[in-house]
């Protein structure tokens, strides 16, 4: 499995409430409530740390889960969130955010 880098999309609306992380896609208004592992992924999505490293150091260290299984789940989730423009994913480090879409008020 190739390296994958993930970065929070600054255009996604995100807020934590009583420990629950909720994120709404600015593209299609889909609302996600993240579970604990998904929240860790979101919080760790700095564009510079590879996904396998996040899984190993943040998820496997905290939860009793096999690294291979955890990484596969993380890949699936990252791609799903990327499909809703909540995460940016890339096989190379993500250093600059994408320019805004749509014209501004």
């Amino acid at each position, binding site marked *: 499995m190739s390296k994958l880098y993930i970065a929070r999309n600054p*255009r996604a*609306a995100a*807020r934590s*409430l*009583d420990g*629950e992380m*909720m994120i*709404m*896609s*600015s*593209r*299609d*208004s889909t*609302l996600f*409530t993240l579970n604990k592992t998904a929240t860790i992924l979101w919080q760790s999505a700095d564009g510079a740390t590879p996904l396998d490293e996040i899984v190993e150091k943040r998820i496997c260290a905290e939860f009793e889960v096999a690294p291979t299984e955890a990484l596969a789940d993380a890949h699936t989730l990252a791609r799903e969130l990327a499909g809703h423009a909540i995460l940016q994913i890339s096989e190379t480090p993500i250093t600059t955010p994408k320019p*805004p*879409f*749509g*014209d*501004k*008020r």
Partner: protein
Amino acid sequence: MAQLTTEIERLSLIIAIGGMPVRVHTSDPDFLNLLQNRYAGFISDADRAEIEFDVELQEPKAVDPDADVEVGYHFGRWWLRRGDFRAEWEPAARRGWIRQTANPYSIDAVLRIVHTLVLAQQGGFLLHSASAIRNGKAFLFAGVSEAGKTTISRLAPLDVTLLTDEISYVRRRGDGYVAFGTPFTGELAKVGENVSAPISALYLLAKGRENRIDSITPGEATRSLLSNMLFFAKDEELVQAIFHAAFEFVSRVPVARLTFVPDARVWGLIG
């Protein structure tokens, strides 16, 4: 010499919902009369409107009754369209136009959309909910179709002022929120009173075998609120505004689940 042109008389009225005056211009006296009847109680004699719309009436033609509403923003203008209307609105100029046939439903949809766009910039929103005032406090009753919005409105005792049985108008004011009456009706087909009051609580409706109020988590309250907000535009800034408005509302207004049997005793729990 005989006059070669005929000046078209320009007629207008102001429809003020949620305290926001919108002037509608038309050249058709019958359409003006239709609007006066449709929005009775919400016609204002204000000198100045916040938005002006020119309505161009068109001949009836076949339209897709199931066509979804589409709303977008481009080069300083909002564009709105559905099978039965086209409209544009330029916020900076406070002007717009509506092309539709002579019916009350198209302009009603345009007004709902425009109010959601304006409110979103101010931390407010329209909500799929009934609302009513009791003892100077407003209560909202949210739910999807068949959840009981019309039922609880119909059961309201005489000391309750009904604001709407379908679409509530919520405006941010100071540290709290205010609910306004709207002419947007549901099954009850009764226009709300054009009054307002501070919102005391939002209840998420559920029909059951007893009357009871149950607390819910802030997360559930926020999700339910978001799912009941009227929201038309696929627009990044608007999504952000609506999303954060829901969190702000939940942090300032009590939200609970109201389970009720369909009789008037439920109002013993309200107010």
